[in-house]
Structure formats: structure tokens, C-alpha cells
């Protein structure tokens, strides 16, 4: 592991059924996560919108699989929206290593689309 190393997560398909479960788990009543009519009414198309914490989780999973350690800190800007049926891929780059942690730039991209999350992370490394 060294500064400049690239991180790449697996490409994942974002499914509407998991969003419904997540709405229940979060007690999130916002219908944009489970009702296409609500999404349509906002002019956002006709596919439910993925929850922000799930988008964050794709980045965290990539970091944990790469390092084998815990993610201590995460700073993310929300740049866009992920819809049901999108394929997304997390990515990143190591910017510094020392003191048992790696500092990384991280992001989440819609495959064939826009960057939807960007920020930094601190993750424990062996």
C-alpha cells in the first residue's frame, strides 16, 4: 500500500426492493424511495431514488474490503442521485499512509453516468 494506489469497488446493481426494506428500517416516510408516482410528481423520472446511506455504504464496503480494517472517518459531498436500476461503482485513491491508517480520496460513480458522491476517508491498514 502506498500513496497513489488506486481503489476500485465492484460494480453493483441498485435494486428497488432493497430501497423498500431500507425505508422501513430507517422509518423514512419519504415516498421517493418506494413510490414511482412520487418520483414522477417531482419531475425526477419514474424510478425510485436510492437512500443516501446506501450510497455511502458502497464506498465503505470498498474501503473495508481493500484494507481489511475499520473505516474511522468519512467525509462525503452529495453530488447527484442514484436511481433503481442504476449500476454504480465506488473508487478511490490513497493520498497518505502513516500511523496505522490510510487517507484516501473516494467517490461513487453511476456507471455510464455522473459522479454522485465525492470526498475523503480515513481507514485502518495493517
Amino acid at each position, binding site marked *: 500500500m502506498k500513496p497513489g494506489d488506486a481503489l476500485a469497488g465492484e460494480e*453493483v446493481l441498485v435494486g428497488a426492493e*432493497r*430501497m423498500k*426494506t*431500507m425505508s422501513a*428500517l*430507517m*422509518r*423514512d*416516510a*419519504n415516498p421517493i424511495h418506494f413510490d414511482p408516482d412520487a418520483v414522477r410528481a*417531482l419531475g425526477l423520472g419514474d424510478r425510485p431514488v436510492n437512500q*443516501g*446511506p*446506501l450510497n*455511502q*455504504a*458502497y464506498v*465503505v*464496503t470498498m474501503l*473495508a474490503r481493500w484494507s481489511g480494517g*475499520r*473505516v*474511522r*472517518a*468519512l*467525509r*462525503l*459531498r*452529495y453530488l447527484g442521485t442514484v436511481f433503481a436500476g442504476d449500476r454504480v461503482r465506488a473508487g478511490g485513491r490513497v493520498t497518505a499512509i502513516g500511523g496505522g491508517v490510510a487517507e484516501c480520496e473516494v467517490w461513487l460513480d453511476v456507471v455510464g453516468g455522473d459522479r454522485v458522491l465525492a*470526498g475523503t476517508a480515513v481507514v485502518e491498514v495493517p
Partner: protein
Amino acid sequence: MRVPDEAGLAALVGTPLPGGEFTFEPWWVHLVNDCALAPVDGGADSPVFAFLAATAAMGLSWEEMWAMFGATEADGPMAGESVTEVHRPLRVGATYAVRGEIVSAVRKRGARTGVFDLVGYRLDLHDADGCAATCVSSIVFPRRSR
């Protein structure tokens, strides 16, 4: 619903959130990891779980949070940025007290977005040993009529 002016926004900084308690129940952690396409036995020790617990037990609903700033879901409030630090491992089965407050609230004007209010709030997870995790997040409130 009345939208606060700039002085009103400033006056809301420091407002405590009611807070509450959150327990990382094993079945809940399993299902969240499943939804996130993460290993279901991956535990709750990540910034994502800190954020979920903090917002679940902040003591008010999102609609109540929007109302504090004179907005509703129909106004299209959006997440801006989140900064989460997990100071020590979060444990499945453990209960955390959540405390928080509004830490910033300012009116801005963007060339593309027009007028919006940027509101920051902080939520901490505490256990018997002190603060286990800290989440500082921002919400963007579009103010199309301003």
C-alpha cells in the same frame, strides 16, 4: 409556514435537538448490511451505521427538522455533505445515547441554484465511556421565492 430571515437563521444556531437512544439490534444490523450489499455479518462498526443511528434517534422526524427552517418535503431539501468520525468501534447489541444541535445556518446565493439556506447539524453517539462517534451533516434548503 414562515421561512426565517437571516437573523432568524442565526438565532437557530445552538438549538439543541431532543436526542434519544439507539440500540444496534442484531437483526436490524443484518438487514441494513443486506440492503447495502455488504457482508451481513459485517457488524455495525462503520460511519454509515453511526449516521443511521444518530439520525434515527435525533428526537425529531425529518419533517419536523424541515419545519424548524420553515420548509416541507415539497420544498426539496437536500443533503449537502456529511462528515462522520467513529472514535472507537460501534458494537452490535450496544445502546448509544444520541445528542445533537444545530451548528450553522446561513443564507447563500449560487449562480446556478439561486438562493438557498445551508444548515449544519451535529449528532454524537455516547456510551458509558464517552463519545463513540460524531456526525456533522448539512442540509440545503432551496428558497426559490427569495
